[in-house]
């Protein structure tokens, strides 16, 4: 699975970064036919805008038939996704990763 692209986001995922983040996420996804592994372990803050972008990326990956998995969560990311009760939405790998991250 060498072609799976691993993308680490090392900035906050909030409304202030939403515009560039959207570009990054979509570009990475579209440029990786085998799918993308997101490493969010260094995301310091996440708000609803950032969360929404993750949902968007997930939706887009499904539309394209590619895999998008979050392989590592920071506490902030996990917190938001859990609060919104969306762990299941992002799929099994996420849940497993989340368990491991605890």
């Amino acid at each position, binding site marked *: 699975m060498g072609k799976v692209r691993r993308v680490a986001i090392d900035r906050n995922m909030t*409304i202030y970064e*939403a*515009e560039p983040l*959207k570009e990054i996420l979509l570009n990475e996804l579209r440029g990786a036919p085998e799918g993308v592994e997101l490493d969010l372990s260094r995301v310091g803050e996440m*708000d*609803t*805008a950032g969360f*929404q972008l993750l949902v968007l990326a997930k939706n887009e990956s499904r539309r394209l038939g590619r895999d998008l998995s979050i392989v590592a969560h920071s506490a902030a990311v996990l917190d938001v996704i859990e609060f*919104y*009760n969306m762990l299941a939405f992002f799929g099994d790998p996420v849940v497993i990763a989340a368990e491991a991250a605890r």
Partner: protein
Amino acid sequence: MDEVMAVFTVEAREQLTAMEEGLLRMEQGDRDPETLNAVFRSAHTIKGGAGVVEIHAVEKFTHVLENVLDRLRNGEIAVSDQLVTLLLRGCDHIGALLDTVEEGNPEPGGELAAAGVAIADALRAWTAGPPVAGGAGVAPQHPAGEVHRAGGDTAISDCWHISVRFGQNVLRNGMDPLAFLRYLLSLGEIAHMTTLADALPEADAMDPEACYLGFEVELRSHADKAAIEQVFDFVRDDCDLHILPPNSRIADYVALIEKLPEETMRLGEILVGSGALTADELARGLALQQGQAEEAPDAAAPTIGEILVGQSAVQPEIVEAAATKQKQVSDRKAAEARLIRVQADKLDHLIDLVGELVIAGASANLLAQKSRQAHLFEATSILSRLVEDIRDSALQLRMVQIGETFNRFHRVVRDVSKEIGKEIELTIRGAETELDKSVVEKIGDPLMHLVRNAMDHGIEPTARRLERGKPVAGQVGLNAFHDSGSIVIEVTDDGGGLPKEKILAKAVARGIIAAGQNLSDAEIANLIFEPGFSTADQVTNLSGRGVGMDVVKKNITALRGTVEVHSEEGLGSRFTIRLPLTLAIIDGFLVGVAKASYVIPLEMVVECLELPFDAGDSHYLNLRGEVLPFVRLRELFEVDGGRPPRENVVVVKAAGRKAGIVVDALHGEFQTVIKPMAAIFRHLRGIAGSTILGTGEVALILDILALVGLASANEVAVPGALPART
């Protein structure tokens, strides 16, 4: 037990007390719907609280209880003695469950659990009656039949259902739905959250700074609708908010589904998934809705305003009920807001500090007086006045009305009278009388004993009462009032009174008194407080449970109080408990004998006068034609040195009797903090405690009651034969 749990149990107990009171009132014929509502609310609060702290045993049991109350409230079943008894047993069970929670076991043990199941089953019998058609307020613009069918059909969910669709500008305006939703946690528990991203457009069309999300939230909370709406105040114009109260009609959920932008089936699944509706409820609701849709096809998308109007038009009865409920809740909230819960030990600490302040203030005052500097003296005077005010307010903080303690006895009297088959009524007077919290806490047990005793031994069996021409219903009274710095609590009954001969015989038999000893009626009656005077031959399972009257007396004496009984055979008895208002600080009157100082509680001082020269060695004097017995502290405490040329008498009054206390010097008023005597001095008669003077010297606080008793005893005995040592 963590703090949340502690708060839960305390509040749950308060609610239980309120429930019990309400139920008792209902049993006595109170048909005010508000009483029932209050009981229902209390049950609901306990259930909700138990849910939040996850004490499922309490939650489940209370749910059953609540269902019965709900049927009562809907007029589907009627109040009866039997039902109230059962509900009270339910309350007791909740209390027992709370006990186990306090012991750290969230789940009850086998026996208690079994008892719970039994009571729950009995309760369920009341909910199993035939359903009564609801839907009293039929919506005018709907076919009556339809609404009628939906009337009694409510969802079993006990959560608020909140549907919110945020507007696109929310994020851009700097507001984050996350913050609002998280704030809901301050109102209660989010039982389920569904995030809806259905409105999220295709990736390219999506504006990363716009919000496309919607949420379906199940909130378990006691907050009212207004409070929940307030959470969303900042985004009210920018979001589409629907709130359904707990146990809404299924039709309301269906109406909500219709109003929301997402597809019906998807929303239906969400509601089922989040526990708002069961699959069955949804199916029934949708079938109903379909029937309506065929009759009135109306596809225009309504605005929020129309929805709200529509909602109130569709279910006036529910909206009204919800509104009333919300109003009651907010009324109660307002009342609660005037109260602050403070940890008792914080208060104790404050009182301690105030006590030290009083002592330090007295010391400063003394120094100022000695310094003879007018300005300093003036300043310390103002200071001590303020200290006095602070002391009073601080003590006031600890004052609670005795009513709460008294009210517990309604239940006791009710249960006991049923148990022993006597008809007994409890009358309470002076419930608003205030006394120190620490005293209130400790007076409960002695009172319980006296009341049980009055019911069991005092009130005669019905046949005997009729024989004596008394009303069938026995009267037990609890009365409280303030009397010269003490609080007096009376337990009265109109029963048979104390059998004098029997008491006398028993006292002789037990060696408490010698045969042939001459005793007044009052003395005989009070023999029942003597240790060893057991009422063993009249043991029932009520009183006579191993706690004798002597224990009652001991408990009360430990509070620096007294207990007396006044009884008339055939007419009844009156137990009088006399307690100091507070245990911490008193206004004292400082007197001196030789070099030592003594404090007499000021409220007991009647007057001071010079000992007439002709008093000599006698122990009584003529006070304006009245014989006043007195004691010489000098003799009593064996103070060395001769009598000064002039002695003073402080006339004191305690428990209705007057006596004189002869001292060398009068020093005047003095505010003082009582330091209890160490245990080894407990048997010292005549001394109630000690205190520290401003000079650092120790002064003993006199136990006036004991001294008055002593003086009166001397009065009866041969004059001049005062024992040198007591």
